């Protein structure tokens, strides 16, 4: 396997840094802390894993980012608060009386010119989505964002999160249902 060149590492970090920052913000809800976490993660990736093949960098970086976030919580002595969210996994009621399709707008791909009003509305919708993402239990949010935003497959997400593939599927499914319900309740269609 070919090892990552400096240019490849640079390009990879450039492609992932903004999403990593936003993900950290969703977790820690603090811009400064999120910047520190992303910087720590970049340093650790370069320091310890720059000899790895380029294909392994995404999964490794996600894992480092998760660990750095967890370390931040530990340092903040809010570990209990973090893990208390995990009890939400079992508390989720799995009633299937809503339809995901209802929250997916049927008119996908219509590239209309956006008016100022539309832009404001989009920004508002975005804020609501981000708020709901932040409300998700930690592991569900991690799985959801890694799977759909970082575009990792189930196996890679499981490796990055240190859990089984089945757990990843469960977390993603529950996250999608929770988000879908919450957005539908607010009348938001994607």
């Amino acid at each position: 396997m070919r090892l990552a060149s400096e240019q490849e590492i640079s390009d990879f970090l450039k492609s992932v840094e903004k999403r990593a920052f936003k993900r950290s913000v969703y977790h820690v809800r603090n811009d400064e802390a999120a910047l520190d976490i992303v910087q720590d993660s970049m340093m650790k990736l370069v320091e310890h894993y720059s000899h790895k093949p380029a294909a392994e960098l995404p999964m490794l970086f996600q894992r480092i980012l998760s660990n750095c976030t967890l370390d931040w919580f530990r340092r903040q002595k809010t570990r209990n608060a973090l893990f208390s969210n995990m009890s939400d996994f079992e508390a989720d009621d799995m009633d299937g009386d809503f339809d995901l399709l209802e929250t997916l707008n049927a008119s996908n791909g219509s590239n209309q010119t956006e008016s100022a009003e539309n832009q404001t509305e989009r920004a508002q919708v975005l804020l609501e989505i981000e708020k709901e993402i932040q409300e998700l239990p930690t592991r569900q949010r991690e799985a959801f964002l890694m799977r759909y935003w970082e575009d990792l497959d189930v196996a890679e997400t499981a490796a990055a999160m240190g859990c089984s593939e089945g757990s990843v599927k469960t977390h993603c499914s529950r996250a999608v249902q929770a988000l879908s319900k919450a957005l539908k309740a607010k009348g938001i269609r994607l």
Partner: protein
Amino acid sequence: MKHSTSQQDLSIQDRFGRAVTARLSESASTLPYDISERLRAARMQALGQRRAPQTATAPHVMNHGGAATLGFGDGEGSLWHRLAALIPLLFLIAGLIAVNMLNDDFDAKELADIDAAILTDDLPPAAYTDAGFVQFLKSRLEQQAQ
């Protein structure tokens, strides 16, 4: 039939997930300037960290290069450097050999002097092994002392 329904659910779930994260990507692409700059600085710092150890190990790598090209007449600077480092060692070895030779000479000369003194004396060497002669010498020394 159930299997195909499950596949369809997965597909809808994936579509929803990607629709949500597409919105999040919009948000990530419009980060404030200062945040983008700080992320860029963090990236440069991390990459700089990678370069630093490489420059530190460069002389080591060059030394290996010199040794590897020893037989090909290349990397002479390194070869001379190594040879120059051997000179003090050579001097030390030469000094030790010289000291050893001088010491041997002194020992040989000392033994030769004793042998010459014994052989040129009036007294035959066999006299020193005669018990009566030793007694005679002792009694003479006592008389001289009195």
